[in-house]
């Protein structure tokens, strides 16, 4: 399991190692045919900042070679905002006094109709962590409703046991996303003081359980800014490196949620700028030609317009991050603020104008 590899690293040593990298290390890393995790450290280090244009050109080229001039579109669909966890950065945290909502079958069908109307075939189901209300029993009831309407179903839900993931696979789920938030164990505990999520170890081992259950695609990532984003990204890359070799039949994806400073919210420990986010995306691509890189609507229009060519392979649009947000209760509180509120059609036009084909369907639930 990844725990063994994780335990062989020391956060502070990794941190120091990244910040020690020099321009010469970056040049070496860029010149290599196959890059290592040490090279990745150089590419995400401050020393790589002057190489950004070169990294972007290489990332673009490598992404086109592997994925072609295509961009996958998907939408998130929030099933519930019930949550038994306290997470210092999340709008759905247990200690936030907000109206709680879990979609019933009829409401889910309304939401599905609204999302399908926008053209979507790939859906990402999202929940908080509330085992009794929104656990396997709920998923068993709702998944057949969802799989009847979508070609590709991904889930971003609380960590589950291996047998549950195997069952989700049987129920037609292709992809499981589970983000570590931060690989800094002490800070993780500080940000997750209550609920099942406070168990760092169980979360760290989750992608292993997903992999053992034979899930087709596994998404990993860190909440950028919760801790030093460079160090967290190194651990994400090390996690990916391990998972790819252990669960060699699974595909992998990485997302880049970044914590932004906002009034009344949690102050990020480190702020990742637009330039640095581009650097990070390109660094992942140069480390790993096959990993899917995903971009949400947290980012601005301009950033998303330009990121299309720099390594990203899937993008959401018109997203609502509240249960019922598309049709049932559009006014309810969202988990995080959407920056780019363009419709999928508008986004598709932007993608096509950039010289890319929009891919609405690239899977079939009947294939698994």
């Amino acid at each position, binding site marked *: 399991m990844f725990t063994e590899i994780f335990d062989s690293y020391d956060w502070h040593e990794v941190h120091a190692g990244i910040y020690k990298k020099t321009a010469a290390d970056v040049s070496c890393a860029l010149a290599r045919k196959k890059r290592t995790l040490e090279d990745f450290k150089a590419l995400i280090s401050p020393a790589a900042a002057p190489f950004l244009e070169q990294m972007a050109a290489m990332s673009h080229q490598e992404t086109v070679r592997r994925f072609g*001039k295509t961009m996958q579109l998907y939408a998130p669909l929030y099933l519930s905002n019930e949550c038994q966890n306290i997470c210092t950065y999340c709008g759905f945290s247990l200690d936030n006094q907000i109206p709680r909502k879990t979609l019933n079958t009829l409401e889910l069908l309304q939401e599905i109709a609204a999302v399908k109307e926008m053209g979507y075939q790939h859906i990402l189901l999202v929940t908080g962590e509330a085992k009794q209300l929104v656990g396997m029993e709920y998923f068993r009831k709702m998944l057949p409703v969802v799989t009847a309407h979508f070609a590709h179903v991904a889930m971003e839900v609380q960590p589950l046991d291996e047998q549950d993931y195997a069952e989700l696979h049987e129920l037609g789920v292709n992809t499981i996303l589970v983000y570590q938030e931060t690989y800094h164990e002490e800070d993780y505990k500080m940000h997750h003081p209550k609920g099942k999520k406070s168990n760092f170890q169980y979360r760290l081992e989750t992608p292993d359980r997903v992999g053992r259950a034979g899930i087709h695609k596994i998404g990993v990532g860190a909440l950028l800014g919760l801790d030093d984003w460079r160090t967290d990204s190194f651990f994400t890359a090390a996690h990916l490196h391990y998972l790819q070799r252990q669960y060699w039949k699974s595909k992998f994806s990485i997302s880049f949620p970044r914590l932004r400073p906002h009034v009344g919210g949690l102050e990020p420990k480190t702020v990742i700028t637009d330039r640095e986010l581009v650097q990070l995306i390109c660094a992942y691509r140069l480390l790993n030609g096959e990993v899917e890189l995903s971009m949400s609507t947290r980012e601005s229009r301009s950033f998303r317009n330009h990121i299309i060519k720099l390594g990203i392979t899937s993008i959401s649009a018109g997203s609502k991050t509240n249960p019922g947000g598309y049709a049932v209760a559009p006014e309810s509180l969202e988990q995080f603020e959407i920056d780019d509120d363009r419709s999928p059609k508008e986004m598709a036009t932007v993608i096509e104008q950039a010289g890319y084909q929009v891919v609405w*369907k690239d*899977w*079939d639930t009947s*294939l698994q």
Partner: protein
Amino acid sequence: MITIANKTFSSRLFLGTGKYSSATMMEHAILSSGSELVTVALKRVEHQHADQNELLSHLKHPKIHLLPNTSGVRTAKEAVFAAQLAREALETNWVKLEIHPDPRYLMPDPIETLLAAEELVKLGFVVLPYCGADPVLCKRLEEVGTAAVMPLGSAIGSNKGLTTLDMLEIIIDQARVPVVVDAGIGAPSHAAQAMEIGADAVLVNTAVAISADPVAMADAFRMAVIAGRLAFETGLPDVKQGAQASSPLTAFLDV
């Protein structure tokens, strides 16, 4: 002309349909290539509404035949199911059998491929299996009744050319079904080389699809395949080190 199963194609160039910047661009490139057999991933097609599919609507030309592929499946069982779906959706019993459980290098699984090929042949499919450049595996596939074999030149999308050249030559030498070199063909010269060593056809996707001008690149591949085939049929001279005097050993007989 090349005949596979019951169909004859005037072009020995087959194309993929992925990675293009638009479906229109794909269509123009295919027409420019002269290809009459193009492969389509079943996962890209809405099989319940195949008639409304945008991708397929761009492939409706009298000379273009569809070769559905099973890309995305990981086992023989999934491949057989996918082939059956494809038969319904695209109304053809032809299938490009692709089972690559490893999503990084997309290397075909020889064991699952052989199992699936055997089953699909029994079910009446015309099976063209994508496989490693393994001469024994190619014979085994032929024995279970595949209509062709499609050994790889190098990894899919790698553009590295015929890194498996020696094995391909053995496969071509032994084959009693058409050999279609698939995957890794990144330049017209690679396609020409495959034809020169006697491959019956080549399948190209990435090199055309991601080219700055897919229509021109498709035309370049069209010409390369024709040139390579003509050279093969004409007979290329052996490659020799240095010059060779004429009849140095038997010249005395002429005296």
